[in-house]
């Protein structure tokens, strides 16, 4: 098994794609990250705020360990990482081979704008005649055919929307760097043969295609067509089926023999459709229906043209494939006549996000799209296109309730609290961690109105306002007028899912999403191809990130098992020579750009002024650094001048490209000693004093480099062993995942045998027996030589040392203590069914909890159960435990359906506040209702009263909100859904330095972007210890946590960043203000030698310690006082 570096292909560069790519790249696999659209970021590039923090936090996904290998700026601007090759505008069209070594053929759309040359000046979009709705802004604004796909991307390359482009060529003329080449000649060289017996058809087709820039020949019969085809080269043939003499099919056969790969489009009238389809079997590419509609014809022809011209199938060899193409939102226009989507001021959730976004059409002001007036009364309609059997969408989209609350809060914030927002819903699904508190604060503090009623029709009112009719809580009809109606459009399988499934050989579930294994949600139907993020069903960001982590774990496990190695990355220190000893010699390279840009700038004068400014620098005039030749000349001049610092004056694209990293690798200088200054945008842009501003920019860069600290990040040792606390299903999965990568794992389980909570659960709602999975995991752990299982054991203490090394003491079953050294810790302590004293629990045998019911159903089934009542949210979602335990609804439905199956006559009543069957679980809710389970709603302050009669007889009295009358039920059995509470973490938080939130769950670093990490490095958590979750979600989270741990274990030395803090001990008076200022707890006071010590691994270089220290005893490398003040001096030099 020849060991070569493992490679992986990630399809879709949305959030989950980026997460998976970063995970695998940090494990030092080679990753190809491709995306159909010309930019990365997927749907997140359109969202500026994300619940539950209502802020953006994408950049927190970037690596914290070994962060110099990746980009260090906002993800919206772009992403680069040593081991990731990002290919925008690329699709996978075929996948052969078997797991471990696949061959994937990639097909990238022709880029009519050369990415190397385009500097994003925007001159090309001005003359472009085409104007169409801007998809990025949800159609609310207009854009040109040549446009910026995403405002933020740096370097910002324009793309051309070929379908809309009329090839007028204006942009080509105007482009200063000659980056645009519409390949009009190439198009003219693409000859099309039109074969039809009717002259009128031939002429009209010819005219259309010529307008499109193609050259067209014509033939009026099959015979003539064959002569022409044999005579000259055609790119495409349009062949009519019904022709006198030789009909289309015969002609096709002959052409097929002559030119096997010549694409042929059959043209058929309505009658001859079957022959056309039959013709396709012989090899016709497609068929066109007469009478032709120009757009369809045009699109098909262009598609054929592009596929022939496109960069033909680049084949890459990869060990595993991760599909992360996400999902689309349903388009309300497709739901006939409903919700008044075609009236002005009725927008979808995404459009609302664009309205409030700073880069959106309204520049962040909350205004109505119709007339720009401020929108002060806003309605949010939930479940548009979800939970609707008519739209064949019997599923819940899981995120719309939450993003509607967020949008309501945003509306309040953007309007200074004036906006009156109302959310119309059926079940407000706030099942995630802290979501219930988010909703409560929205309702109580911010005054968002929640109205439980599903509205169907929206009628227009005077001047663009909208009137809604709905039934309020008490059943009375209400009409209310709103300025703006936001439809929470549900999810749909992404448009490309069908082709992707076909090319990847993967099955889809009936709703069109990727079908996955019930319990291992990252495994698709084809081994070796994994599903990350929302492709298997819309999830919120944190679940998508967890799902992506689990997909990358499975991919990494597969690659390793098939011989692909992930050798530990060589530390940057060794890569670059440590030039901190030798004298700083600074070179300034000014890149003379060949294009018309250079006209505005006199490089000679600039060079002279700079050397006057600081005689010790050497000025080098170079040519087009972006080309290979230019770079080579720069390297040579650098070598012979012996300079060890360089500031390059060049154009914007070089600013963020991989240029610095490549240059660093070739010159052996650490990237911290190099800087690129954009001298062409100011010179080119408006605003006077171009000379002064360019000179100042260069001077500031020179001063910055003088203060740069050349020493690369120090590396620390790591004990390449893991400690997993808790042997439930999460702990077992995480331990196995790490052991499969060849690392030793110590698994500590409190009870006598592992299994945790899952042992009390017979099967999942999908009917998968849990004993099978649990059995396999437990036997897997026991059999695995890398895992040492300590049952009946508890952690009693732990000490962290330099780098990533912990020494933990545990007390084993038989009382003696053992010391375990390890580098990473995974907390999987799980939870238990919450106890309760409500509703007469404990006073009568016939009042049980869901788990007890499940046990009873397990042996003996539901026989003898006439009337069963279940109460949900017992103790959950109210003070004391104000969170939703997420799994009690699905457990209740599972048991109710089991009871109904065993004895259909049984009467089952479920008292609920909100049924939290998110995602595809909603189908079980529909099934339960169809089976005749009666659902009775109650509210937090009007709970059902339970009285225990003699002999344990239970009677429940509650007020049915719809009948408006009290009803009484005497069930044989009352089942309480008490939800999950975390197991007591005791002093673990103290030992390992992680925090616990007010409900006793593990507090993660960042809910959405670092769900499994803690702020303290090297400590991770998964499973119910983090928050209540189902079995499959716990497994996914365990794998994600294992993946994050493996990123560290896979290195023999762990490398700190180069921009970290440093303490000048001579100046330090130990006031410890820097210790409390550090958000990462990276500083501590060493009592013995009375010094402040920095844990350089945890330090992220934010500089909070430097600013709080009065005499700068604490300073951040590269941002010292001297350096910053010198930059200020340089900036003010030229006034």
């Amino acid at each position, binding site marked *: 098994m020849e060991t070569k570096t493992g490679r992986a292909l990630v399809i879709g560069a949305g959030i989950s794609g980026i997460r998976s790519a970063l995970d695998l790249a940090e494990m030092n696999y080679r990753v190809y990250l491709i995306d159909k659209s010309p930019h990365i970021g997927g749907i997140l590039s359109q969202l500026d705020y994300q619940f539950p923090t209502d802020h953006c936090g994408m950049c927190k996904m970037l690596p914290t360990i070994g962060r110099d290998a990746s980009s260090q700026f906002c993800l919206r601007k772009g992403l680069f990482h040593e081991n990731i090759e990002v290919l925008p505008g690329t699709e996978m069209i075929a996948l052969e081979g078997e797991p471990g070594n696949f061959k994937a053929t990639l097909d990238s759309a022709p880029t009519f704008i050369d990415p190397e040359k385009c500097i994003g000046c925007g001159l090309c979009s001005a003359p472009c005649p085409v104007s169409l709705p801007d998809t990025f802004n949800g159609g609310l604004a207009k854009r040109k055919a040549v446009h910026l796909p995403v405002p933020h991307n740096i370097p910002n390359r324009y793309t051309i929307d070929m379908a809309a482009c009329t090839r007028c060529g204006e942009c080509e003329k105007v482009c200063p760097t000659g980056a645009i080449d519409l390949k009009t000649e190439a198009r003219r060289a693409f000859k099309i043969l039109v074969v039809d017996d009717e002259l009128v058809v031939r002429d009209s087709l010819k005219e259309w295609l010529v307008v499109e820039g193609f050259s067209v020949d014509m033939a009026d019969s099959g015979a003539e067509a064959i002569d022409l085809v044999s005579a000259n080269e055609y790119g495409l043939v349009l062949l009519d089926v019904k022709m006198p003499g030789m009909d289309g099919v015969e002609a096709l056969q002959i052409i097929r023999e002559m030119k096997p790969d010549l694409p042929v489009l059959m043209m058929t009238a309505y009658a001859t459709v079957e022959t056309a389809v039959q013709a396709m079997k012989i090899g016709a590419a497609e068929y066109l229906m007469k009478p032709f509609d120009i757009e369809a014809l045009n699109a098909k022809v262009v598609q054929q043209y592009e596929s022939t011209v496109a960069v033909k199938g680049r084949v890459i060899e990869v060990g595993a494939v991760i599909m992360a193409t996400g999902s689309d939102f349903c388009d309300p226009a497709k739901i006939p006549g409903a919700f008044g989507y075609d009236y002005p001021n009725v927008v979808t959730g995404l459009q609302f996000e664009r309205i409030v976004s700073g880069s959106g059409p309204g520049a962040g002001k909350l205004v109505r799209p119709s007339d720009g007036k401020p929108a002060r009364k806003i309605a949010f309609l939930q479940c548009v296109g979800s939970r609707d059997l008519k739209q064949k969408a019997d599923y819940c989209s899981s995120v719309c309730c939450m993003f509607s609350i967020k949008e309501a809060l945003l509306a309040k914030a953007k309007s200074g609290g004036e906006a009156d927002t109302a959310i119309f819903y059926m079940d407000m699904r706030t099942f995630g961690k802290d979501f219930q508190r988010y909703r409560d604060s929205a309702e109580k503090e911010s005054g968002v109105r929640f109205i439980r009623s599903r509205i169907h029709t929206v009628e227009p009112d005077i001047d663009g306002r909208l009137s809604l009719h709905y039934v309020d809580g008490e059943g009375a009809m209400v009409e209310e007028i709103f300025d703006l109606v936001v439809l929470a459009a549900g999810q749909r399988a992404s448009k490309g899912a069908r082709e992707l499934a076909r090319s990847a050989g993967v099955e889809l579930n009936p709703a069109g999403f990727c079908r996955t294994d019930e319990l291992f949600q990252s495994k698709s139907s084809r081994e070796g191809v994994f599903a990350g993020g929302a492709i298997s069903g819309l999830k919120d960001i944190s679940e998508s990130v967890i799902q992506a982590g689990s997909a990358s774990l499975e991919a990494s496990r597969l690659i390793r098992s098939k011989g692909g190695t992930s050798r530990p990355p060589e530390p940057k220190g060794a890569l670059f020579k440590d030039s901190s000893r030798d004298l700083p010699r600074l070179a300034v390279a000014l890149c003379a750009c060949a294009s018309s840009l250079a006209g505005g700038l006199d490089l000679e004068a600039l060079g002279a002024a700079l050397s006057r400014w600081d005689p010790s620098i050497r000025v080098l005039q170079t040519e087009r650094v972006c080309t290979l030749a230019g770079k080579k000349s720069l390297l040579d001049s650098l070598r012979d001048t012996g300079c060890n610092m360089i500031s390059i004056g060049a154009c914007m694209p070089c600013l963020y490209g991989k240029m610095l990293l490549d240059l660093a690798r070739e010159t052996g200088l650490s990237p911290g000693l190099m800087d690129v200054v954009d001298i062409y945008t100011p010179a080119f842009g408006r605003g006077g004093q171009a000379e002064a501003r360019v000179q100042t920019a260069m001077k500031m860069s020179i001063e910055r480099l003088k203060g740069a600290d050349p020493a690369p990040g120090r590396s620390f040792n790591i004990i390449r062993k893991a400690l997993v606390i808790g042997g439930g299903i999460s702990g077992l999965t995480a331990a196995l995942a790490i052991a499969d990568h060849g690392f030793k794992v110590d698994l500590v389980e409190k009870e006598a045998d592992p299994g945790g909570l899952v042992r009390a659960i017979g099967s999942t709602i999908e009917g998968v027996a849990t004993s099978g999975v649990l059995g396999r995991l437990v036997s897997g752990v026991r059999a695995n030589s890398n895992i040492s299982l300590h049952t009946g054991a508890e952690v009693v203490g732990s000490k962290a040392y330099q780098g990533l090394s912990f020494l933990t003491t545990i007390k084993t079953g038989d009382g003696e203590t053992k010391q375990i050294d390890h580098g990473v810790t995974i907390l999987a302590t799980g939870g238990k069914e919450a106890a309760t004293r409500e509703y007469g629990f404990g006073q009568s045998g016939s009042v049980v909890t869901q788990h007890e019911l499940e046990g009873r159903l397990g042996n003996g089934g539901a026989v003898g159960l006439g009337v069963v009542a279940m109460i949900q949210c017992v103790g959950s979602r109210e003070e004391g435990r104000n969170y939703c335990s997420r799994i009690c609804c699905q457990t209740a439905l599972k048991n109710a359906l089991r009871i109904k199956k065993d004895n259909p006559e049984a009467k089952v009543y479920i008292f609920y506040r909100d049924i939290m069957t998110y995602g595809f679980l909603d189908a079980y809710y529909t099934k339960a209702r169809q089976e005749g389970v009666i659902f009775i709603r109650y509210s937090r302050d009007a709970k059902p009263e339970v009285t225990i009669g003699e002999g344990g007889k239970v009677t429940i009295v509650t007020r049915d909100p719809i009948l408006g009358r009290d009803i009484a039920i005497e069930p044989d059995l009352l089942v309480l859904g008490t939800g999950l509470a975390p197991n007591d973490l005791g002093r673990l938080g103290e030992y390992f330095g992680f925090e616990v939130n007010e409900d006793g769950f593990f507090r993660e670093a960042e809910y959405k972007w670092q769900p499994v990490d803690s702020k303290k490095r090297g400590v991770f958590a998964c499973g119910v210890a983090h928050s209540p979750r189902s079995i499959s979600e716990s497994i996914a989270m365990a794998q994600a946590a294992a993946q994050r741990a493996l990123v560290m274990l896979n290195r023999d030395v762990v490398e700190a960043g180069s921009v970290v803090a440093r303490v000048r001990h001579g100046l330090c008076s130990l006031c410890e203000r820097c210790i409390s200022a550090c958000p990462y707890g990276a500083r501590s006071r060493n009592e013995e030698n009375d010094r402040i010590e920095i844990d350089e691994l945890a330090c992220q270089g934010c500089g909070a310690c430097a*600013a709080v220290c009065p005499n700068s005893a604490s300073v951040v490398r590269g941002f010292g006082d001297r350096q910053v003040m010198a930059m200020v001096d340089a900036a003010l030099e030229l006034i």
Partner: protein
Amino acid sequence: MGDYEPTIIAFVCNWCTYTAADLAGTSRLVQPANVRMVRMMCTGMVDPKYIIKALLEGADAVLVSGCHPGDCHYINGNLKARRRMKLLKEILPKFGFDERRLKMTWIGASEGIDFAETVRQMTAEVKALGPNDLRTRMVL
């Protein structure tokens, strides 16, 4: 006063505001060219003495701009910066520095328009205030 062009030193955080500034640049928003940007990793890193240095050195105004509370890549750097700015806004006006010469704003990653607007507004305000004469004063 006509031809006097104010110079504004802007301490910007590398994550949100720098992105907004780039966005303002790439989407060709018209904004005056008087801003000299010093890129810091976070506004929490801006030491009060840098701002005093800039003002004494003759800068007509100083802008400190970072991420919105909660967006900060380093969790709470911007909140610490706000307290330091509050301190400076108490001290400097006592010595005749007009409070408008020292401005702090939150600018998110996609608020390029806000960045351009802030710069335009600040330039106009500072132009009205007149130059900071320390630039040519002898005593430092």
